[in-house]
Structure formats: C-alpha cells, structure tokens
C-alpha cells in the first residue's frame, strides 16, 4: 500500500542527529536548515535497493532537477521529500522540520505525472481542491484561484469540466492547483511527460514564468534534458538503479529564463554535458 504515515509518525532514520521532528509552526533551528536537506537518505524495498543514500540541498527559491534513467529512484526520492514515504537510511528535513510535519503544514505543492483532476469537479473547483482540505494549515492569505487560472491561460474555462480539456490544458489546471497553496516548495514528478514536444516546451516556459515572481523552490523530476537545463539552477544527475547522484551540475544561465534561451550556445553546452553524464551513469 502507498498510504502515507499519520502525521504523528517520525520518519527520520538512523544516523540522524540534527533532526528533531517539529510538528507545528515553521520554526527553523538555524540558518543552514532553511530549504530541503537530504542527508544520506536512501530507500530499500525489502531486498531491492531503490536509492543508495544521497545528499542534496535545495535552498529556498532554488530550482533543482532530478535527472536520471527510468527506475533509478527519482519518484522514490521525491515521495520521501514529500513525507509520503519514510527513508530507510539517513534523514530529510524541510526548513528543519520532518517532511511529514511539512506536509501537514501544507508546505508542498505537489504535481503528479498525470494531472489527477477530479472529473466530477469543474476546473475552478479542482484548483480549489487543496485549499478545501486540511484548512487549519492554510496560509492567512490564499491565492485567488481565478487569478491563477488567468495566469495559466485558462480564463474562459473556469466552469469547464476536465474531460472538456486537452491534455496540456489539464496539466495547466494541475499547475494552478499546485500554486493555489502558495507553498514554498513545489514537488513535480515528470509533470509534462505525457504531453507532445511542442506543448511540453510551452509548459516549461509557463512554469518558469510562474515560479520566478513567487520565488518558489522546485524539485523537478524529468527525463528531458532540455527541460532540466531550461528550468533549473542545478541539475542532479542520477545513475541507473540503484540510483545515486553522479554529479550535481550548476546551470549558469541568466534569470528570468525565457524561451529564446533555448537557442543560446551555453544551453547546448550544458545539455551536452548532462547527456554525457547521463550515459556514463547508465553504464553505457
């Protein structure tokens, strides 16, 4: 079963000295714990090692991409960060808190691979969905769903039903829904994987546009090198299973990221570098 642990269950594993799960509030225990800290976090499913212990830090406002071959543990790492799966080794903290506590405090905007829209709810009601549950943890000022629909270019579709939308439009709704919590961290698991190449490019441009002014930190999982370069401040390249981080590549491209950047020679240089790392990591 994939059912999450109750909020009362601490997920920190052994070797964890710095972490004390803090259940409520956004209390940080020091300056160095701001952001997402993954320290030696690994995951075993029985005898299968899905992810060898990895270290990674995502600063507030930073966009970090996990790039790696299929089955290397990207989803597993993302779910551990989201507090949906406890690590079997090491520890993860979010602003110094246990991920489960961060999840209870609604500090994550989650975008799954499928849009996961509820088909019986209108577009607007879908965007509101995450605002309606666990209300106690809502921030004082919630973003306006209609303004968000505006921002993703779906102004005229607020009362449309999901089945009336194209795949790309559905994923736009999923984006608006993730931003509706004004969460400091966005966790995205191959959100554009099901889309065609052109729509996909549009979507990464839109995502960059949405993230920049909000200063949202993003952990982004993808197979697409172009997506990784375009969106990220840093790209963590993972090896084939059992996954480990081969290298973390800095993407020194100017912000704000705009579509014409994809024709920049520096873009190609980093793309090539990532491709090489990816091939080394997959043992080919």
């Amino acid at each position, binding site marked *: 079963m*994939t*059912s*999450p642990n109750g*909020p009362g269950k601490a997920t920190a594993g052994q070797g964890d000295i710095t972490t004390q799960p803090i259940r409520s509030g956004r209390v940080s225990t020091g300056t160095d714990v701001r952001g997402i800290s993954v320290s030696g976090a690994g995951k075993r499913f029985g005898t299968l090692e899905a992810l060898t212990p990895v270290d990674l830090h995502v600063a507030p406002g930073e966009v970090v991409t996990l790039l790696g071959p299929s089955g290397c543990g990207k989803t597993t790492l993302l*779910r551990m960060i*989201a507090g*949906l799966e406890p690590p079997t080794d090491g520890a993860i903290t979010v602003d110094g808190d246990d991920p489960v506590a961060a*999840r*209870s405090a*609604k500090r*994550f905007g*989650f975008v*799954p*691979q*499928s849009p*996961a829209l*509820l*088909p*019986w709810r209108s577009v607007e009601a879908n965007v509101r*969905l*995450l605002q*309606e*549950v*666990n209300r106690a*943890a809502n921030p004082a000022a919630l973003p306006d769903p209609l303004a968000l629909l505006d921002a993703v270019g779906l102004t005229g579709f607020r009362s449309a*039903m*999901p*089945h009336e939308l194209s795949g790309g439009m559905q994923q736009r709704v999923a984006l608006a829904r993730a931003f509706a*919590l004004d969460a400091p961290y966005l*966790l995205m698991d191959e959100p554009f994987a099901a889309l065609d190449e052109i729509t996909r490019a549009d979507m990464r441009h839109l995502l960059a546009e949405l993230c920049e002014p909000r200063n949202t930190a993003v952990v982004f999982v993808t197979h697409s090198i172009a997506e990784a370069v375009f969106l990220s401040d840093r790209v963590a390249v993972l090896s084939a299973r059992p996954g480990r981080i081969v290298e973390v590549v800095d993407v020194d491209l100017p912000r704000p990221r705009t579509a014409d950047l994809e024709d920049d020679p520096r873009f190609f240089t980093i793309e090539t570098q990532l491709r090489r790392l990816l091939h080394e990591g997959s043992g080919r």
Partner: protein
Amino acid sequence: MSRTVRQRPAAWAVIGLVLFTLTWELWVRLADVKPFITIEPSRIAGELADNPRFWLGQTWLTAWHTMVGVGVALALGVVVGAVLAAARPVEWAVQPVLVLVMVTPWVAYITSVVNWLGAGTPTILFMVSFVTFPPMVFAAVQGMRSADVAARELLASVDAGRREVFWRLRLPSALPSLFTALRFGTGLGLAAAYFSEGGSVASGVGLGEVGRRGTQNQGGGYPIVWGSIVCAAILGVLFLVGVNLLERRVLRWHSSQRAATS
C-alpha cells in the same frame, strides 16, 4: 413510415411491446390456453381499468417497500463499504459472510424471518434490505478502491483528513459502481418485496399479497393474479427508468454517460 421514425429507438420499443402483447392475446384466444396458465392481456387491462384506485394503491405500497428497503441497503452498504475499503482484514472477514447471504436463495429462509419479525411490514423491509445489501457493499468497496492513485497521493501531500478524502474522492469515485448496483438492486429488491408481501397474513400490504390472494381464490382470481404481475412489471420498468435518469444527472462527468448522450 418516415425516415425519422425509422431511426427512433423509442418507436421501435413500442412496436416490439405491441407485437409481444398481440402475440400473447392471439395465443391465449386461438390455442384456448387455460386461465391457470395465463389470461388475455385485454382481460388484465380490463381488470386494471375497473379498479384503478385499488391497483395504484397496492403498487404504491410495493414501490414504497422496495424503495425504503433498497435505500436502507444502499446507505448501510456505503457505510460498511467505507469501513471495508479502509481495512483489508475486516474485508477478508466480512466478505465470505456477504457472499453467503448473496448466494443463499432467500425464498428458502423467509419463513424463518416471518417467524422472527412477524408477517408484515418489518419482514418485508428486512428482506428487501437484506438481499440487496451485499451487492451494495461490494459495489461501494470496489468503487472506493478504484479512486485514482495519483489523486490519493495529491490529497496525502497536503495531509487531507480521512473524512475529507472520503467525501471528496472515495465516495464520488464509488458512484458509477453504486449506480450499477442500484439498477440491479431495485430488480432484486422488487422481487423480494413481492414475495415477502405474499407471505403476509394481513391484507392491503402490496402487490405480492394481492397476487397470493388471487392464487388462493380458485376460478375468479386469475385477473387479480395477473394484474399484480403486470403492475410489478411496470414498477420494475419505472425503477429502471428512474435510476437511469438519476444516473444521467449525477454522473454527467462520467465517461459512460458521455458515450450514452452523444
């Protein structure tokens, strides 16, 4: 016949029913079928037309028994289904019992229920609920389990409460299978209501009791027996139509309804 009529399913349905009734009528008249086998539809129609108030009243009683019984089964089925969907061991424990209830012919143990609850409304309602309950539970469990995994993760990612997940995701996900069970359950419930009414000693408890009295009244009772059968049949059709209309309204978002309406 114009082209539009030729392509209307409803028109063909009427033609089919008329042909069926005519065949029945002719068969009884020409083959001189004995009344204890069946009687002419025209005689049944005459009986119904002679006593419309009586037949409406009795049909309403049976309808009421079926709706209340099935309604209770549906409500309990959703509650029990929610529990079973949440806890596998409970499901493993309860499932065989429900299967047992479902496969046992209820005709076989109805006497025992009459002895327990007495002949009358309690027995009728109990029987209708009892026989339609297991399919409702199975439909609820299956539907709630079918809730989209990604949507479940999404709600978990903001730590939505069990109740919030139930109302916003699990229950709506179960609606399509619950409607299927409801369509099947009203037929089953109607049969249980008719038969249980027939086990009653008091008069004026519905079509089943009218039918049984007709059977005992040798000779003159056949129009009454067949009147109750035809009324029960009409009731069954009305239930089906009602469930389908409700489904079309409630499940407008569901793919099954889109295929049906477009």
